[in-house]
């Protein structure tokens, strides 16, 4: 396929589901040439999913499809008809979308896919995979994939999926949110490898995403879609510059930049110590004596970010601090009470003043209704009348933008964005002293991220709880906290004011985390990863 030759052309494509009020895609047209890339940017349910289904040829029987599709140099044909494609198409899913069967190793499953696509024996496919991984900077060895999906971390699986795509030497790659929620350093590295492989193999790339990192890093053409229709299409530089449709500007507002300016004083002056940690060591062996433990303090109304990659020890620290796991060595004082000397019952009582807002979608009981979820902390901890509880609930739901939802809906029926806001509403009614915010934007598209940031800021401004922010993203840390501790291998490697770290990071891991979220200035130079 020569450069510039059309890889596919979609004309007037519409996709509808039975019973749905709006079509998933509404007269969508797109032309892509060999070696070109296009980022399809939109919220969840904007139509990206339907586009990928049609291009990938895995539409569902219930899909009502109209419009035409032309693949390679073939003739246009109705998009509803499934035919063997004239070009080689590789699919790159997110490792978090559970793309693997649980009972076989990732290596065997990837080899099978590559072998089927190349029409070669599985041994040759495995060799192609090995070669692909060896070509990629920073990729794990092939042997690391010889495990079942549950035993592998998502980043390693993402490397495997990327290698499988490369090994197929495709004409077209359909990247379906492939790097969503993998952490900024991994995203940066994998995007770089994807771009390098595209340059080397010359495949066309359709990259569906709800986040702005890929659009900003890959650059080039961006199609913004909403409710199945193209809002606008253009160059990433122009869309990011602000000269764009109001909706696109809203999406790009979710792209925070790191600021090297000293933060303004946040709200009221900090109060008495709320959380004091003395000599806590997650790695210590009590029999051998302690090593240098971790000591820090969080005052009432203050905020502290715990920054690091997955598995760096941030969550282990939070669990130890909150008494969910006992640290082998150290002392934790919460609200002037030593948690280590309290019984489980008393610790449980103290925890009433703690709230969690996490990126985990199963943090709320899926069986509970929206109203019950917000009411529970009030009913469990206080003796209030039904009217008072309803009043607090309504106030909290209004503040997070869920007041118009039917309160009898169960959590299971809510979107990830609504569930995240519901966590905030539940935290608001509990009037906590400490809020643990753990990757609060994970899995949300750009639009939802903007709203979520505003909701969290409003919560902090009105109730002034202390924030303990767990994240791998310096932009999230800077938006929510003034000071930070950087973790690596379950140890704190750097600590201090975030702005000082941004200006002069001392440790390599800190520098890497900052670089991962430092986006290229699209207005000055061509985008690069």
């Amino acid at each position, binding site marked *: 396929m020569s450069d510039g030759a059309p890889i596919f052309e979609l004309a007037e494509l519409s996709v509808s589901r039975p019973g749905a009020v709006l079509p998933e895609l509404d007269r969508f047209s797109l032309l892509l040439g060999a070696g070109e890339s296009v980022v399809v940017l939109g919220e969840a349910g904007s139509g990206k999913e339907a586009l990928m289904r049609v291009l*990938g040829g*895995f539409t*569902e*029987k*219930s899909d009502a499809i109209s419009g035409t599709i032309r693949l390679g140099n073939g003739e246009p044909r109705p998009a509803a008809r499934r035919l063997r494609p004239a070009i080689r198409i590789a*699919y790159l*899913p997110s490792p978090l*979308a*559970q*793309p*693997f*069967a649980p009972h076989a190793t990732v290596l065997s*499953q*990837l080899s099978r*896919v590559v072998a089927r696509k190349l029409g070669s024996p599985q041994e040759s496919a495995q060799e192609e995979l090995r070669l692909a991984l060896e070509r990629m900077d920073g990729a794990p060895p092939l042997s690391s994939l010889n495990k079942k999906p549950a035993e592998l971390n998502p980043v390693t699986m993402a490397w495997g*999926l990327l290698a*499988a795509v490369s090994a197929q030497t495709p004409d077209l790659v359909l990247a379906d949110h492939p790097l969503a929620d993998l952490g900024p350093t991994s995203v940066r590295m994998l995007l770089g490898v994807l771009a390098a492989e595209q340059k080397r193999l010359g495949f066309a790339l359709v990259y569906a995403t709800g986040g702005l990192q890929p659009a900003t890093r890959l650059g080039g053409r961006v199609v913004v879609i909403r409710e199945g229709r193209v809002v606008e299409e253009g160059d990433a530089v122009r869309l990011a510059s602000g000269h764009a449709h109001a909706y696109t500007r809203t999406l790009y507002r979710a792209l925070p930049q790191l600021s090297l300016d000293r933060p303004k004083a946040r709200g009221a002056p900090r109060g008495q110590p709320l959380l004091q940690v003395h000599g806590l060591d997650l790695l210590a062996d009590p029999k051998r004596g302690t090593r240098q433990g971790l000591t820090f303090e969080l005052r009432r109304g203050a905020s502290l970010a715990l920054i690091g990659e997955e598995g760096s020890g941030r969550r282990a620290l939070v669990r130890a601090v*909150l008494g*969910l796991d006992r640290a082998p060595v150290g002392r934790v004082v919460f609200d002037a009470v030593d948690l280590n000397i309290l019984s489980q019952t008393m610790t*449980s*009582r*103290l*925890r*009433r*003043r*703690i*709230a*969690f807002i*996490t990126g*985990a979608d*199963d*943090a*709320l*009981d*899926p*069986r*509970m209704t929206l109203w019950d979820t917000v009411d*529970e*902390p009030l*009913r*469990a*901890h206080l003796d209030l009348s039904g009217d008072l509880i309803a009043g607090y609930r309504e106030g909290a739901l209004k503040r997070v933008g869920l007041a118009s939802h039917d309160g009898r809906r169960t959590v299971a029926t809510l979107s990830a964005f609504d569930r995240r806001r519901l966590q905030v509403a539940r935290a608001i009614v*509990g009037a*906590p002293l400490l809020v643990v915010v753990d990757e609060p934007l994970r899995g949300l598209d750009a639009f939802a991220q903007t709203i979520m940031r505003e909701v969290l800021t409003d919560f902090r401004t009105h109730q002034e709880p202390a924030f303990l922010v767990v994240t791998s993203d310096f932009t999230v840390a800077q938006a929510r906290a003034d000071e930070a501790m950087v973790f690596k291998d379950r140890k704190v490697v750097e600590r201090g004011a975030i702005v000082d770290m941004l200006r002069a990071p001392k440790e390599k891991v800190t520098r890497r985390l900052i670089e991962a979220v430092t986006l290229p200035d699209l207005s000055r130079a061509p985008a690069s990863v």
Partner: protein
Amino acid sequence: MSAAFDSPPHAAPMLRVILRVVGWCGLGLIAGAVALSDFLAHAPAGAANAGSILDAPSPAHPFGTDLLGRDLLSETLHGLSVTVGHALLGTIVAIVLGGLFGAVAARLPRPVGLALRGVMDVFAAIPALLLGILVIGLTARLYAPLAAGLAAAPLAFVRAFDRVDTKSTHAEYARATGISAATLLRRDLTYEFRDTLATVTARALAAVTIILSTVSFLGFGATPPARDLGLMIAAAKTSYLHAWWTAAAPAFALLILILCARLAAGLDESERP
């Protein structure tokens, strides 16, 4: 890479939903027949010589008559009423002692909970019929409904115990914010039991009905004049080979009752709880 992307999601099991509706409608009709049994019956319970002996089904006696000339339609309606009453009592015992205690035991300190589950596992391994007969032997035939409930309880206990997921992420987050174990138990009872109570009840009803009827058939259960369907079938043993209708009517009623309960429970025995 295949399963998630190559095949469409499974279609909703509409047939099962339809069968469930049919099952509940059937149980509703049976409840209606039980409630109106005194009006629908041609004769009071145990009324001999309502017709001649061993009359075949006819317009006067749609189900025929038995050895004592009792109208079998009337007797079947009365027997159904007794069977359903006893089975409901046994079902309540099975649900409370099995399901409810299982859900509570799962929240006890882990070693205690597992020890209880182990004990219940042993009882669940014994055929429920033998367990029911054993309990009747230790008490009295009068307590047959309770014995049937107790015999069905171990399996309900194990199912309810296994259904409770104390290690779920949402439960852990709730505990981390001071929500007590009692509140979490209330949550489970409110949502889990509310959502599955109908299924659990229907399944227990089917199990208890089978135990009760078999126990009565073997002569360890209901005693005259309170004749349930099992006892009616047992009484027809001598006449069945030359007057099939004497056993067919109560057997058919029993079959319909158990089938409707099974359909209402969703048919699949492996389905929890």
